[in-house]
C-alpha cells in the first residue's frame, strides 16, 4: 500500500515535471479518439439519413386503369399483412395530380393544359429499413409486380444503391481506422513512457542497486501511462461534445434541414471509446516498462 502511494506521488511529480511531452501525448491521443468518435457519429448519421430517405425511395405501386374499389382494398389488405412493409399509403388520381403540381412548382402552369387527369392511382409502400439494400428492394418489387391489378412498380434504385454502399464502406473503414487508431494510441503512450524510462535510466539503475524490486520501479511509469490515457479520454469526450454542439448550432443556423437528419449525440455511446483509449494507453505503458533486468 505504502509502495503504491509512493509510486502515485512519483507519477504525479513526473506528470508535472514532463508536462510538455505529456501535453503533446494527451493531445495526440485525444485527437485519435476524436477521430474515432467523429467517424462513429458520421456513420450513425449516415444511417439515419438512409432511413429517412428510405421513405422517399419507398416502392410506388401504380395500379391498372379501371380497378374496382373491392380490388383495390384486396391489394391494400395484402400489403397491410406483408411483414416487410411498414407503411401503406393510398394515393388517388386526384391526390397524385395535386402532388405533381406541387413538385413542378414554378413550372406547374404547364399542367393547366390538361383536359382530363392522366395519372393512375397508386400505393406508396415503405419497407423495413433492414431490407433497404438494392437487391432486396428489387426482389420485393418484382414480387409485387406479379400481383393482380398492378401496372408498374417504381423505386429509386440508383440513389439507394450508392448511399447504402457508402454506409457500408464507412462501417468497414470505421472498423479498420478505429483499430489502427487504438493501436496508434497504445504506441504513442508506449513511446512516451519509453522516453521517460530512458530519461531516468540513471535513476532506475541507482534504484536497482539500492535493492528496489521491479514493482517499485515500474509502478510509477504504469500509473503515469494510465493517467495520460484517462486524461486523453476526458479531453476527447469534452472536445467531441463541444465540437458537435457547436457544429449542430452553427450549421443548422443556415441549413435548418440538417438538424432533422443529424442524430443527437448519445453520450452513453461515447464513453466506451475513450475508455478503450485509456486501456490501450495503460497497455502501452505496461509494455514500455516490461523489461527490467538485474
Amino acid at each position, binding site marked *: 500500500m*505504502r509502495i503504491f502511494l*509512493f509510486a502515485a506521488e512519483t507519477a504525479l511529480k513526473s506528470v508535472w515535471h514532463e508536462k510538455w511531452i505529456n501535453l503533446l501525448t494527451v493531445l495526440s491521443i485525444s485527437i485519435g479518439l476524436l477521430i474515432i468518435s467523429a467517424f462513429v457519429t458520421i456513420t450513425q448519421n449516415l444511417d439515419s439519413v438512409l432511413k429517412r430517405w428510405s421513405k422517399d425511395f419507398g416502392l410506388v405501386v401504380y395500379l391498372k386503369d379501371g380497378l374496382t374499389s373491392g380490388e383495390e382494398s384486396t391489394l391494400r389488405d395484402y400489403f397491410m399483412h406483408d411483414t416487410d412493409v411498414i407503411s401503406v399509403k393510398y394515393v388517388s388520381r386526384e391526390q397524385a395530380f395535386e402532388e405533381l403540381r406541387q413538385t413542378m412548382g414554378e413550372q406547374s402552369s404547364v399542367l393547366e393544359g390538361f383536359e382530363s387527369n392522366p395519372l393512375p392511382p397508386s400505393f406508396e409502400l415503405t419497407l423495413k429499413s433492414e431490407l433497404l439494400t438494392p437487391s432486396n428492394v428489387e426482389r420485393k418489387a418484382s414480387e409485387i409486380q406479379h400481383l393482380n391489378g398492378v401496372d408498374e412498380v417504381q423505386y429509386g434504385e440508383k440513389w439507394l444503391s450508392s448511399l447504402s454502399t457508402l454506409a457500408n464502406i464507412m462501417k468497414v473503414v470505421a472498423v479498420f481506422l478505429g483499430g489502427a487508431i487504438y493501436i496508434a494510441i497504445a504506441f504513442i503512450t508506449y513511446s512516451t513512457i519509453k522516453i521517460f524510462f530512458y530519461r531516468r535510466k*540513471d535513476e532506475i539503475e541507482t534504484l536497482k*542497486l*539500492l*535493492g528496489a*524490486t521491479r514493482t*517499485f520501479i515500474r509502478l510509477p511509469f504504469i500509473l503515469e501511462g494510465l493517467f495520460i490515457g484517462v486524461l486523453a479520454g476526458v479531453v476527447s469526450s469534452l472536445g467531441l461534445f463541444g465540437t458537435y454542439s457547436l457544429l449542430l448550432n452553427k450549421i443548422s443556423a443556415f441549413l435548418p434541414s440538417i438538424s432533422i437528419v443529424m442524430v443527437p449525440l448519445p453520450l452513453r455511446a461515447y464513453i466506451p471509446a475513450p475508455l478503450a483509449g485509456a486501456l490501450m494507453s495503460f497497455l502501452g505503458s505496461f509494455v514500455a516498462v516490461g523489461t527490467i533486468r*538485474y
Partner: protein
Amino acid sequence: MIQFAGVSKSYDTDVVLKDITFTIDKGEFAYITGPSGVGKTTLLKLVYCAERPDEGAIVVAGWDLKKIKQGTIPYLRRNVGIVFQDFRLLPNKTVFDNVALALRIHDMHPQEIKEHVGEVLKEVRLKHKENILPQHLSGGEQQRVVIARAMVSKPTVFLADEPTGNLDVETSRTIMNLFRQINTRGTTVLIATHSEALYHGTGRRVLFLRDAQIEKEIVG
C-alpha cells in the same frame, strides 16, 4: 560472509580479474587496494551482482550468486550498503530524500524513516543541509551523503569504494570512525581505496590487487 573462489572477469578482451580467491568472514573489516584501473570497483560490483563473473563462484551473505534468481537480487542488495565511487545521488531529490530512498525501498513507515535519516545525517554532519539538492553541495559533502545513504538501512555487508577521495584528513578520520562503529555492530566492512593513509596502522587485512590478481595480503 563474502567468498570468492577462482573468480575471473574480463571486459571484451580486457582481463581485469583472473582466478581471484579469498574469504572475508562475518564481522571482519578489510581493505582492497591497488593502482588506478586495476579492478577494485569491478571486484565490488561482483559482490553486489552489478557484474557477473566469467568464471568462478561467489557467495555473499549466504546467497550463491551463481544460482541467484533475477527476482531475488533486490533482496540481496537490501543487505548490502554501498558507497559508490561515482556517488549516484539522484539530482532532483534533496539530501533528505536521497537518503530516505534507501528506506522507502525497504517499505519502512514514513515516521520511522524521518527519525533514522535525521540520525544518520547528524552522524555525517550534514543535518543542516538536508533540504538542499546534491548539486549545491561541495564534493566532500556529496560523498558524505552517499555514506549516509549506505549506512541508514543497517546492512549486514558494507562496501565502500574510495569513500574519502574528496575528504580532508580530519573529515576522513571521522568517517573512518563511523565505519568502525558500524563494524562493531556486527556488519562486515570492505573498503576499496588507493590511499595508504586509510589502512596504514589499522591492524586490518589489506588485499593488494595488481595485474588482475591478488599480489599479496598484509596487515595494515
